[in-house]
């Protein structure tokens, strides 16, 4: 549905997005990750046709966004960053306007407004002026606008920003549900969101893709992925350490904490693997040695750790607004 080819954007001498290429099919939810100023919003603005790329192509549903923008834009629902909306209008007025500009009329328009009002829980504020609403409601009003024409492609720039935990949960469920039938791209800073919603995640840093894969694949690349934590009682740390030297899959181990009654040890695997082999071997060892194991578990690896390891901690490249 969405095809991006060698997309590039320069703002003066600064390259905001550099040679970005990827595809998103129907039924996929692609999470866009990246530090501030990495080029996420700029990329989304180019995909939705708001700003023209310096170079490269965007196809939406087969339509070229530059050559043939109107049919391409018709397929897209877009929630811009900070969820802008016309403050002087009521929620109902705003949604009706958006439906009308999307070509809906009469009964269809009423049905569409009713549908999104229900989906985004806006019944209570339907006839309130948007500038009197709380941030959460304003955000959901703009989200409602993006799905009013039941688009095949959804581009959401930080859709859960500024929502409370319950609302975040609702919106995630909504995205996940819609992701079964649509092609969705959404950006976020919340890494747990990626795990909860995305079928694929892409990390962008300084305008380039630095990682691309399913959330599980990315997690497996984290430093701590596959590390086994072992808590044993009644044995001295040094004894355990010595015995652990015999474990084939272990690269090294370290005592994290030693108390009188128990010892906490972390064992690093030889190859980066989370298939449980290391844990099996340790478990066998513990059975042979008759240790009183309190806890034994393999770290899955964490997305935020991986994120930090591949995106450079540089705050100089702030996004130009």
């Amino acid at each position, binding site marked *: 549905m969405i095809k991006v080819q060698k997309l590039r*954007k*320069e*703002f*003066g001498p600064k390259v905001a997005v550099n040679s970005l290429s990827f595809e998103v099919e129907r039924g996929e939810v692609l999470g866009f990750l990246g530090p501030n100023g990495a080029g996420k919003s700029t990329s989304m*603005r180019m995909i*939705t*046709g*708001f*700003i*023209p790329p310096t170079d490269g192509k965007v196809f939406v549903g087969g339509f070229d966004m530059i050559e043939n*923008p*109107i*049919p391409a*834009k*018709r397929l*897209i629902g*877009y929630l*811009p*960053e*900070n969820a*802008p*909306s*016309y*403050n*002087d*209008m009521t929620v109902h*007025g705003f949604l009706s*306007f*958006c439906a*009308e*500009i*999307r*070509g809906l009329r009469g009964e269809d328009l009423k049905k569409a407004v009713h549908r999104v009002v229900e989906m985004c829980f806006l019944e209570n504020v339907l006839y309130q*002026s948007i500038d009197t609403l709380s941030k959460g409601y304003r955000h959901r009003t*703009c989200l409602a*606008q993006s799905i009013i024409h039941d688009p095949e492609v959804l581009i959401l720039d930080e859709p859960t920003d500024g929502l409370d935990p319950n609302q975040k949960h609702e919106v995630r469920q909504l995205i996940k549900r819609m992701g079964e039938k649509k092609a969705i791209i959404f950006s976020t800073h919340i890494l747990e969101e990626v795990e909860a919603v995305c079928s694929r995640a892409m990390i962008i840093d300084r305008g380039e893709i630095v990682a691309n894969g399913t959330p599980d694949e990315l997690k497996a690349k984290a430093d701590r992925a596959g590390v086994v934590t072992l808590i044993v009682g009644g044995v001295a740390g040094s004894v355990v350490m010595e015995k652990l030297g015999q474990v084939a899959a272990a690269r090294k181990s370290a005592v994290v904490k030693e108390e009188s009654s128990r010892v906490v040890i972390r064992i690093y695997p030889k190859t980066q693997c989370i298939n449980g082999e290391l844990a099996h071997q340790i478990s066998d060892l513990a059975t042979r040695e008759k240790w009183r194991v309190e806890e034994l578990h393999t770290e899955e690896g964490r997305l935020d750790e991986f994120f930090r390891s591949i995106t450079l901690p540089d705050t100089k490249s702030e996004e130009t607004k």
Partner: protein
Amino acid sequence: MNQSSLGNITTLAKRELKGYFASPVAYVFIVIFLLLVGFFTFMLGNAPFFKLGQASLDSFFKWHPWVFLFLVPAIGMRVWSEERRLGTIELLLTMPITAWQAIVGKFLASWAFLLLTLICTFPIIMTVNYLGKPDNGVIFGAYVGSFLMAGSYLAISCMTSAITRNQVISFILSCVICFLLILCGYPPVTEFLTTLGVSQSLIETIASLSFMTHFDAFQKGILDFRDLVFFFSVIGFSLFTTGVILRSHRAG
């Protein structure tokens, strides 16, 4: 122009026009306009309405260029700068509409609002018709001229509001541009240029760019094709420039 672009323009214009009446802007504007024009017509000048002793609205229309000079930019200044400030321009231009549909739709809405304001001055037509026998053709012509001039001011204000997201800057810029376009045909200025020894043909060229020169003809009840062309060219040019400015902002 096909059906859908007309539909898009109407949808946009309707929203914009509703926006005026959703806030106090519309009411304040109409009241201030009527008060100012009324005050000038009856109180100021060499020949205010009653002292003129004629059943004509000359003393009414001659103030329009000056009142519009400050009031129309006040309407036009928010047209695009507000969209940029709120970020709604990003919504608007990612909808399945072209930029020129948005530009024309927003312009027409504000112009329709100015038309409504002009219509609100109808009591003065009734007054002058009650007091005497004015030439209503001339009055109609002057209204057309006033409406076209307001449209030209408005198009220029739309253009300046596309330049900046700061409404104050937009207001001042459009006031200055409109003021210059009035001045270059204002008799005291052209006379001053003559005393400086500027050649007559150059003065005429400059004066022909002025709102005053073209509005005068309308005030006399003359609907000259060239004057119509002038006002529509100013509007067309300003709206075209608005499109160029908006595009260059997005291109970064």
